[in-house]
């Protein structure tokens, strides 16, 4: 059985291929993996082992464009990454394990990972033993093309260091894998800063915010101070935002003034108001009308679907974007502002001729971190000229759009995972 396994695997082993780029990596972005049946550990349940490997692969997905899917059905030679445990001579491998101590695992570029089952592998956050998660993440790094890295804190250090609580991929490890596979890209349905009111120990109200990016049925919390997403994201919309459409939204608006504090989500021709106290959508509005409601009813003069929207606290208007038009909605008057809709270029003129999204904007995002409004479309964004910008450069047009930049170079590592990895 070992020789048969070795023959199966050796046929599919790919030689290193520098290709034209001069570096070595998988050429596809969705990779399959399997914990082979002959290679289960005797120390953890099979389900525990598979869970840990799912988590390990997901951790690489969270920082790179790669996605991993567990494949338990295809012929073994069709599986991209094969994992197994063994002792001494194992799994048809020519590299013997040495018993307890020293070598705990090894891996080959583009294929196999073997773990020495004479080591005391343990589940995450277990005090003693060797963290299987940490070892798996390290070995997967080799399979993906990373060598050992002699930097304190790197997951690719050759020696094992006991896992502290909250072991995660650090900045340089992210850049190392992105050096091989590129950065994460993609558009978003909406981006917003969620305002929270908290009471300090002294009884005072403090205003805090968190930044959220939403794409289809997933979302990420973006930690601006750390230039990355929250560890473990993305999460399904249903997990964090109860009652809004599971497959995604078009827009988020927070109407925040002295008289009003209301959060709305928009999708298609409908909208919902969100109950921030109870963390779910309201069942009905104050007038007894059930949500979702039609946009055309809640915002006279406007009809869905819309591309995106934002609330401008300067003039207490909601700006809705729909194709090439912008609708300014006067919240107090509950009607469209005079003269609207207008062409987006008239409302947000380009600072540099020709550098403009020209409509069909994905998201309009006011960032409290940057104190600026951004329009996002695809992988690009345009910052809207603010009052400070105009004070410094009076020649800039009001609400002008500064030259575009790339979303993935401003908000980093907002990466998809394979849908099967959303719930481990």
């Amino acid at each position: 059985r070992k020789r048969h396994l070795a023959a199966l695997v050796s046929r599919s082993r790919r030689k290193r291929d520098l290709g034209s780029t001069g570096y070595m990596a998988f050429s596809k972005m969705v990779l399959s993996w399997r914990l082979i049946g002959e290679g289960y550990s005797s120390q953890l349940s099979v389900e525990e082992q598979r869970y840990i490997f799912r988590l390990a692969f997901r951790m690489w997905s969270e920082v790179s464009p790669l996605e991993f899917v567990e494949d338990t059905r295809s012929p073994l030679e069709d599986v991209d990454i094969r994992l197994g445990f063994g002792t001494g001579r194992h799994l048809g491998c020519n590299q013997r394990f040495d018993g307890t101590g020293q070598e705990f695992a090894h891996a080959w570029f583009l294929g196999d990972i073997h773990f020495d089952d004479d080591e005391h592998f343990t589940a995450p956050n277990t005090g003693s033993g060797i963290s299987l998660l940490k070892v798996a993440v390290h070995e997967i790094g080799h399979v993906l093309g990373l060598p050992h890295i002699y930097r304190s804190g790197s997951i690719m250090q050759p020696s094992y260091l006991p896992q502290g609580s909250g072991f995660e991929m650090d900045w340089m490890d992210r850049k190392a894998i992105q050096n091989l596979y590129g950065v994460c890209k993609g558009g978003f349905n909406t981006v917003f800063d969620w305002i929270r009111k908290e009471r300090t120990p002294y009884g005072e109200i403090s205003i805090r915010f968190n930044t959220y990016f939403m794409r289809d049925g997933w979302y990420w919390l973006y930690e601006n101070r750390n230039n990355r997403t929250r560890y473990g994201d993305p999460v399904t919309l249903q997990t964090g935002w109860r009652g809004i459409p599971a497959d995604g939204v078009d827009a988020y608006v927070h109407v925040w003034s002295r008289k009003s504090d209301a959060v709305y989500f928009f999708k298609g021709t409908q909208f919902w108001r969100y109950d921030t106290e109870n963390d779910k959508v309201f069942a009905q509005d104050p007038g007894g009308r059930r949500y979702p409601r039609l946009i055309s009813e809640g915002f006279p003069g406007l009809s869905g679907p819309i591309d995106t929207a934002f609330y401008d606290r300067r003039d207490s208007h909601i700006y809705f974007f729909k194709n090439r038009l912008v609708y300014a909605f006067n919240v107090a008057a509950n009607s469209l502002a005079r003269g609207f809709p207008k062409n987006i270029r008239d409302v947000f003129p380009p600072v540099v001729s020709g550098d403009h999204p020209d409509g069909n904007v994905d998201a309009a995002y006011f960032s409290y971190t940057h104190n600026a409004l951004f329009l996002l479309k695809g992988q690009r964004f345009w910052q809207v000229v603010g009052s400070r910008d105009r004070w410094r450069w009076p020649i800039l047009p009001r609400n002008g759009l500064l030259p575009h930049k790339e979303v993935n170079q401003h908000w980093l590592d907002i990466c998809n995972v394979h849908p099967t990895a959303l719930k481990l």
Partner: protein
Amino acid sequence: EKLFHSRDHSDIQTLTSHQAQDITDTYTAELFLSRYGFMQPVDWEEVPFEDSPVDFNDDFLDLQAMIQEGTPTQSDAFISALKEFQKVSGLPLTGVFDEATKLAMNKPRCGVPDKDSNDTVTHSQVGNVDTDGRHQSETVRR
């Protein structure tokens, strides 16, 4: 099963025969350095399978035998390899198999060689990444 009595298996008794050989002297240290590519880079990708004509363990055993028979190895090569290991391990570059070096060598570690003859991208070449992931021409020295 492996015999245990504690709930968390922390008392698992391991047989001596399954214990990895500790690095205790210059002989075993030289084996270590050779195994992980510090003496010379290892062609790791040619190692893998039982039917492969390349047998990493046979080459390794040849080195063991050579050392055991007293065939003089290149001591300069050993010192140089030792210093390289000390350097990447953040140890003082004594070139001597001292306690700190012995401790570092006996830590649990990955079996992949540190010096692979196929490596073209090393930790010292992490540079700027453009949006297509291409490695830009400027390298960054650590």
